[in-house]
């Protein structure tokens, strides 16, 4: 490992990413890079929360980062319960905060 300290992770690995694209989080445009997971894209935009819990409605986001804990569930393009830390972000994705189990529409 290099002993030097970079200012950003991208600088550390001398990243030359492919062109960025746009997606949305709760309707607001954010930028994504090819290859990043939904969770990484949200972290890049400074967003740590994209779910509220079923019982107490508390905010949650990525925790384990490897797909084991299911805390990072999000609604992506209308489909709830997607693991944001594993799912790659794609141009035009519409990510929305998942409330509870994400199936509120079925209860109406």
């Amino acid at each position, binding site marked *: *490992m*290099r*002993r*030097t*300290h*970079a*200012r*950003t*992770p*991208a*600088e*550390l*690995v*001398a*990243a*030359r*990413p*492919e062109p960025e694209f746009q997606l949305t989080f709760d309707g607001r445009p954010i930028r994504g*890079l*090819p*290859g*990043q*997971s939904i*969770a*990484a*894209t949200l*972290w*890049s935009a400074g967003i*740590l*929360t994209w779910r509220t*819990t*079923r*019982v*107490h409605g*508390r*905010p*949650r*986001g*990525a*925790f*384990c*980062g*490897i*797909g*084991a*804990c*299911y*805390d990072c*569930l999000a609604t992506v393009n209308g489909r709830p319960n997607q693991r944001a*830390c594993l799912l*790659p972000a794609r141009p035009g994705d519409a990510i929305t905060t998942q409330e509870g189990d994400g199936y509120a529409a079925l209860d109406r």
Partner: protein
Amino acid sequence: MPHSTDERRPRDADCAGLAVVGAGPAGLAAAVTAADHGLDVVLLDSAVTPGGQYYRSPPGGLGATRPGALHHGWPVFAELSARLAAHRDSGAIRHLPNHQVWTVERAGDGDWILHAVTGAEGDQRSAVRARRLLLATGAHERQLPFPGWTLPGVVSAAGAQAMLKSGLVLPGRRIVVAGSGPLLQAVALSLTRAGASVPALIEASGYGAYARAPQVLAANPGKMAEGVRHGAALTGAGVRMLTRRAVTDVHGDDRVEAVTVSRVDRRWRPVPGTGREIACDALAVGHGLAPQLELAVAAGCGTRACADGTHAVTLDQQLRTTVPGVWAAGEAGGIGGVELALCEGELAALSVIREMRGGVQRAAARRAVALLRSRRRLRAFSTLMGAVHRPGAGWSEWLTGDTEVCRCEEVTAGRIRTACEEFGAGDTRTVKLLTRAGMGWCQGRTCGFAVRELADAHGSGRGAGEEPDGPDRRPLACPVRLSTLADLAEPA
């Protein structure tokens, strides 16, 4: 299995000689070694790119021209990757990325059938048949709950590392690293190299405890040197190393703004009045790793309790499990790190070859002897490491009644205590039935250790002659659709 006739069975496109589950360090080493010796191998891995959690790297689109800058020992992985690619091209290894094996079953003829979910949405299914099975399923991080650990900005230490290695992102700019175990040092170093500031590394044990076993240390000078190197690099990066302390509270409304760090005694009981606040915008926390045993348990493999408080697959010197035809390597057999995983992967593959052919060539036999020696030395070190960082029995004293223990089902420590004290629950299963702790999406992977410890502490516990809690049983290694389960009932 009748090995003498086995070699004469023609290569069968539908049945591999060996299935390796997991393409991390152990699985990769096993697969390429087995293929080197002429075995036809199928390598199944849940990730899109090989490397496992340790050698996670940014996908191509991120254009990392120096991916090794985030890694220790990158050339080893580069060499394994090249060998994998060569064997894939020659057809010796069938590499199936994005295949999450959710269960294994034994067919009537002794072959193994591995059932996987695959596809971009995880909604496709796939079944693979193989004569032998080698499990290199790795580990996930072990967590202990504490007040405030569900606040956004608190992330798992291994998770912060994983998100950095694969996505080139950080959870914050000023990140406290806390918990216990050597992984924390590696995580803190990575975070500082990637531009974060790490004001403190909080370790609940004391590194001095390693001195308990001087002969083990003397046999592992590389491990000691690594510890010293990490310590110096952390100091150089401005990280304060605070031992015998733990995070006992997290502050902030919508996200982390500060943490309270308290002294803990030798049993990890927080010492009242010692709390001190450290400002930060994220906390990366973890208490060692826990082997992923779902498939080993599904295959019927015996397990053992380890010095670190986790369960691991029982293995003999040849890395055979207690089930004929099933081997395991790496973290599944007990947490030990990347060097041990590489060693065991190679050794397990040689053991498979030996059993198949009734022996190995002289060079391979010599190699196996050297690997066996390394394994013994590294296992001794990992046992010491596990004992040093095993959570002390007093950790639960930092919980408050409203601290959530099970994150999925939002079950508090207070409810678990009520289940134990008022309803007599003394084991994980009874606590789960009474409170739903461990019943959610993650199936107790996150809270399982903590719930077991809380239940054990109340110890009204087991009936006479009952075994202590074994490993958690999860018949499905990941969530699958009901339609997938229904299809399994149909003959393939």
